[in-house]
């Protein structure tokens, strides 16, 4: 079995550009390099046409009816900030309350923290052990001051898919805008802004086999017409919502990636799901004390977040250094706190320290999965043999009753 290493299984962090996407993009660096705002000459018009085509591809991938609603940005971080701060600033007369969820991406959470410093009030909803938002809690949190609800589509750590359609319906009934960060969702799970009653939707090319540095915010134009205050000011591009010369080549790539994502979603998601099942079955056949983090069924196909009890995550990553994955362990990050997402699910800190996130994507193969199962099994076994916790558990000690000397 000859697999080529290193193996990339970190597709939540970013994805490899699809060669078809790169091919579509390249002419826009050298031949068609015009500024899309230069309407007076052919270079500009070719660039503008290419951008318009990309807008249509992007709109189709999310079920939008018109491509006039796509605002091109530098990525999901910017789109998140534009949606949240832009709506809060535009509608501050109407109310000063926003609702989001404590497992959102940092870009969403920190945009809310910034608004809190300006005097807005924010409710950070908890999630259940499955990682999902409780609709009754969401409904109860809404007041007549609530102007925006922000809930992501697919969580970047545990892959759970929130009940978007129900959340959207609730927001619509209550007359509250609904923003969804779908960075991890496009091409992985079906997204339809109309059926799901979404008002604002953020996404980014590099999570869907496109290049880094380009993203979009879809902004509903009809029923209701959503208005935003821009983050920065300048030449008035993107209907005044996002000034700055358009990154034509990246946008062309983003459009091509969106078209592929929409077209290949059915086939790709079932293929990726089969790979994930293979990985999960293999790991559980070989190892005991393997815990799944987050709900099993409401989960994007490529995500598997598991805790290998009694083996610290960073030491495991070090052992499987020919496989690219990430860990929720604090030791892999600059902080001493393990993943806030796992904490929010109520996962014990000790299990959070042992978590690994596998992100399976378009380019992974069965051979790579089999290799990964074998390597993880080997390293977890070796590290458990040198884990004092594993030793205690084998001796029948209940770790919860031990008087630990923390530091």
């Amino acid at each position, binding site marked *: 079995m000859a697999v080529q290493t290193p193996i990339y299984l970190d597709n939540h962090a970013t994805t490899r550009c699809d060669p078809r996407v790169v091919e579509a993009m390249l002419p826009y660096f050298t031949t068609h390099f015009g500024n899309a705002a230069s309407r007076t000459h052919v270079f500009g018009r070719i660039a503008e046409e290419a951008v318009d085509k990309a807008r249509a591809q992007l709109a189709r991938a999310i079920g939008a009816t018109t491509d006039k609603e796509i605002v091109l940005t530098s990525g999901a971080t910017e789109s998140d900030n534009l949606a949240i701060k832009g709506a809060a600033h535009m509608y501050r007369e109407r109310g000063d309350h926003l609702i989001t969820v404590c497992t959102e991406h940092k870009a969403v959470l920190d945009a809310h923290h910034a608004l809190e410093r300006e005097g807005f009030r924010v409710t950070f909803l908890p999630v259940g052990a499955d990682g999902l938002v409780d609709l009754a809690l969401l409904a109860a949190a809404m007041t007549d001051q609530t102007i925006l609800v922000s809930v992501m589509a697919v969580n970047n750590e545990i892959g759970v898919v929130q009940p978007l359609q129900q959340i959207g319906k609730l927001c619509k009934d209550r007359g509250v805008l609904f923003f969804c960060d779908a960075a991890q969702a496009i091409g992985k799970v079906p997204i339809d802004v109309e059926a799901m009653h979404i008002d604002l939707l953020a996404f980014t090319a590099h999570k869907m086999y496109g290049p880094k540095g380009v993203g979009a915010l879809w902004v509903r134009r009809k029923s209701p017409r959503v208005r935003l205050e821009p983050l920065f000011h300048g030449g008035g591009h993107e209907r005044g919502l996002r000034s700055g010369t358009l990154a034509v080549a990246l946008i062309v790539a983003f459009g091509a990636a969106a078209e592929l994502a929409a077209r290949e979603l059915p086939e790709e998601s079932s293929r990726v799901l089969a790979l994930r099942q293979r990985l999960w079955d293999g790991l559980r056949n070989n190892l005991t004390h393997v815990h799944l983090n987050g709900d099993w069924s409401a989960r994007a196909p490529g995500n598997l977040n598991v805790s290998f009890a009694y083996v610290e995550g960073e030491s495991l990553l070090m052992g499987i250094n020919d496989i690219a994955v990430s860990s929720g*362990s604090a030791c892999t990050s600059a902080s001493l706190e393990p993943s806030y997402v796992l904490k929010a699910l109520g996962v014990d800190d000790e299990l959070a*320290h042992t978590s690994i996130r596998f992100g399976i994507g378009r380019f992974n193969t069965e051979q790579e999965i089999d290799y990964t199962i074998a390597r993880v099994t080997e390293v977890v076994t070796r590290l458990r043999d*040198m884990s*004092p916790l594993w030793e205690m558990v084998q001796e029948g000690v209940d770790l919860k009753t031990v008087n630990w000397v*923390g530091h």
Partner: protein
Amino acid sequence: MAYSDKVLDHYNAPRNVGALPKDDPNVGTGVVGAPECGDVMKLQIRVGADGVIEEARFKTFGCGSAIASSSLATEWVKGKTLEQAATIRNTDIVQELNLPPIKIHCSVLAEDAIRAALADYKAKQAATAG
């Protein structure tokens, strides 16, 4: 995270992994850290009649730097008297393994583990003497 060659070496070929019988009066056992902090170290020493540490073992739940720190600690205490072993400082471990600032606590834990093992041994000896 870029690991130093020495950390990698201890991680890949840890010295003295294992356990000594903890009820043996000549064995001192130190367990420090806590699972919810992401690191637990167990370090054991066996002390000969001449007061010299003749054997050491460790098991560690923690990052690669923690594993390397405890592996190194077992190497260093071997052949030392109790007094000499007590002089090993975490800064010596940081220097030897070239640990970056965020990994200093892993070396602190190793120093604590040595002290805990020494204290356990002394307490046992005092108990049998008394």
